[in-house]
């Protein structure tokens, strides 16, 4: 077990190094922060002074070494655009993204699993067909379009839900939460549905096919033969067996959710890391871009490690097979 963890951690190093190099390549080549920082009116001397101050006149290799050295200490200097430490900015934004992502994941599970169970048990009912159709549409509509349509219907036409932002938040230490206020919860509804819809349909379809698979197995037939009630068979035996892959897939999908939060946060002006990242891209605010990429990579390595441990702990047989569905 310990050796397993160590080997996984070692494998993470080349990943992180590659991502660092990518981050740094952006750092070194994209956009021109100098012009943005100077505004419209300045002299050539001011410009050169700023280039020197930012160290942009140093050779590539020296800049990269310095970048790595600082990155290890989670030190990315000041954002070009906001003139604040990047680490502070990311810490401030992280709660918004994580709350949104976890709510979306929770919604996806809470709605997707029952729908999957139902469609698995009653394959031919009209409701099942309806669910399946909905899920297909959910997979076929791009996230941004869903978000725009939800805003149009619920904020502009009906005027019942907020169209942007997090509402009122409560600070608990450095963490800010929207869970504790009415406006915070209301603000969460549309973005989390938008973000969770794809995962919900994915989970529903996964649970459905797992249920179909399990219901065919001998031991379910045996359980029925023993005279157990349908209820006991379905929920005590069948569902229990489908949950392991569902939970691991959801874990892996958390990464996808955090990545897709970029799109949702853009549409809903949700003040999270994804919005910070996209605004950084638009303004060539490279310290933020670099830090975001590294942080996301780290987050995924950790999620992956946990999922691996779950595999290891729960069911060694599952290794390899189901991971393929974790793409997208």
């Amino acid at each position, binding site marked *: 077990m310990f050796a397993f963890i160590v080997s996984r951690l070692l494998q993470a190093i080349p990943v992180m190094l590659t991502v660092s190099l990518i981050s740094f390549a952006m750092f070194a080549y994209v*956009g*021109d922060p*100098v*012009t*943005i*920082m*100077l*505004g*419209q*009116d*300045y*002299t050539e001397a*001011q410009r050169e*002074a*700023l280039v020197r*101050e*930012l*160290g942009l006149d140093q050779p590539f290799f020296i800049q990269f070494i310095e970048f790595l050295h600082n990155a290890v200490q989670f*030190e990315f*200097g*000041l954002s*070009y*655009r*906001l*003139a*604040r*430490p990047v680490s*502070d*900015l990311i810490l*401030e934004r992280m709660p918004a993204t994580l709350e949104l992502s976890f709510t979306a994941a929770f919604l996806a599970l809470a709605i997707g699993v029952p729908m999957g169970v139902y469609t698995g048990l009653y394959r031919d009912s009209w409701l099942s067909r309806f669910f399946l159709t909905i899920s297909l549409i959910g997979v076929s509509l791009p996230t941004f379009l869903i978000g*725009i349509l939800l*805003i*149009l219907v619920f*904020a*502009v036409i009906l*005027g019942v839900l*907020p*169209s*942007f*932002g*997090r509402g009122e938040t409560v600070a608990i230490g450095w963490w800010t939460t929207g869970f504790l206020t009415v406006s915070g919860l209301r603000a969460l509804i549309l973005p989390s549905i938008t973000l969770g819809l794809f995962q919900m349909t994915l989970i529903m379809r996964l649970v459905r096919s797992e249920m179909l698979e399990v219901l065919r197995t001998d031991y379910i037939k045996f359980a029925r033969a023993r005279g157990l009630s349908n209820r006991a068979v379905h929920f005590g035996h069948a569902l229990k067996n489908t949950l392991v892959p569902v939970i691991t897939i959801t874990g892996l999908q958390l990464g996808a959710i955090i990545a897709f939060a970029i799109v949702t946060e*853009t*549409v*809903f*002006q949700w*003040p999270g890391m994804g*919005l*910070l990242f996209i*605004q950084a891209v*638009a*303004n*060539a605010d490279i310290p933020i871009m670099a830090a975001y990429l590294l942080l996301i990579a780290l987050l995924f390595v950790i999620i992956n490690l946990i999922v691996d441990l779950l595999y290891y702990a729960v069911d060694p047989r599952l290794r390899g097979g189901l991971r393929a569905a974790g793409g997208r």
Partner: protein
Amino acid sequence: MRVHLLAAAAAAALLGSIAHADARTVRWAASGDPNTMDPHSQNLGTVTMVLQQIYDALIMRDRNLGLQPGLATSWRQVEPTRWRFELRRGVRFHNGNDFNADDVVFSIQRALAPTSNYGIFVDTVAEVVKVDDHTVEIVTKIPDPILPNKFASVYIMDKEWSEANNVRQPQNTRAREETHTVRNTNGTGAYRLSIREPDVRTVLVRNDDWWGWKEPGNDGNVTEIIYRPITSDATRIAALLSGEVDFVLDPPLQDLERLRRAPGVTVLEGPEVRTIFFAMDVKRDELLYSNVKGKNPFKDLRVRQALYHAIDIEAIRSRVMRGNAIVTGTLFPPQVNGYSKEQDVRLPFNADRARALLAEAGYPQGFEVTLDCPNNRYINDEAICQAVAAMWTRVGVTTRLNAMPLANFFPKIQREDTSIYLLGWGVPTLDALYSIQSLLASKDGEPGNGIWNYGNYSNPRMDELTRIIKNEGDPEKRTAAIHEAMRIYREDVPHIPLHHQMIPWAMRSTVSIPHMANNQPYWRWAKVN
């Protein structure tokens, strides 16, 4: 028991609402967020729109953008190179410190620091002298007739506070630590900063001790301002329509019609002091990104006139700008000192004339050219360029559009890596010198001359006129020089002017605020019902 608790809660809520009965909150949104709270670090509209609520200048703008006393009660030019300012007494900063001459000397020197972005407003200042606690003299390098105009953009900080918080210099981005002024302010203005969360919200509360509330005209009733940046056009408008925000500084033009029709929403229209134009490379011997080899068509006046004639400005005004533009034939709008109506005449739209001029210049088959254009800087900038590219292509000048974000656009044109580009030029000093010196003077090394003249237009008479406009104390002679410069501008066609921007503001009907041509809402003049 539960009933009691509820009753108590209701009573408390009621009391709370009574206590805030006088509270007038305005929720304000725009696409960009100020990137700092430092008053001398970033000379950008998105920064000053917040800072000018917090900081006062020696001289301030009135509702017509004229000058009125601010922290200085009077000023005069005692010698050609010496200005004397009498300072207002009894003014306090938000932290309670007294305002005096030391603060003025400190602030102007801070604006002169290398890390300052406000140098253009103090470029002629040689020395700042404290005469006594309430009198300051400014010694200039050359006679500077428009110094008061420039000083209306220089904010006054508290010397003691700045020294205590180690912000003697404007913020330095290379610093490992965040500068105190990035998120903290201490001005003398009508509002004080209460909460600053970059990109999320900025909250200002009324400073009841502001000296200006006693002055006539400052009759606003807003007690709290909540600013939120909303980048997405659609989301920003959705928020206004659904009542989540009260005021949108930059509603997209295409939504104005709907906003005008929406119940409870008011649209205020007005011009901005900013002119949109195309500038051409008139220096290079071979044009970049073109199929013309060995020569530069733009060096030929007839080609420049042909492109001018090819533009159907009325179509751009009505379709692209949806009527929200003031078509122009000159370099700056009427609010700017030196404007003359007679010179504001365009070369008419005439595609046949354009083709004839091209043929005359030796390009009967036209030629290819690449148009550089920002896509997130000016109102509908990319759409303007697309439309003009089609118009030029129709007269034979096949135009490839290269539209890009300002982060790529400005470095590109500043490398002069361009043949023709779209630019918008605002005039914060409201004086023609600012435009002529930056855009039309040759790059001769003099500070400020030709710093935005990336087409390298150069005319010795224009340079001569720039010198006169800079130094001439006699207003009449100075105006004559400006007019001559604008006559040459129209003859030489170094630019193809398009229009002055209009900047509609959209708000809930409960808000009333004077529209300002510098695109800055002055909340001290606003009323919320």
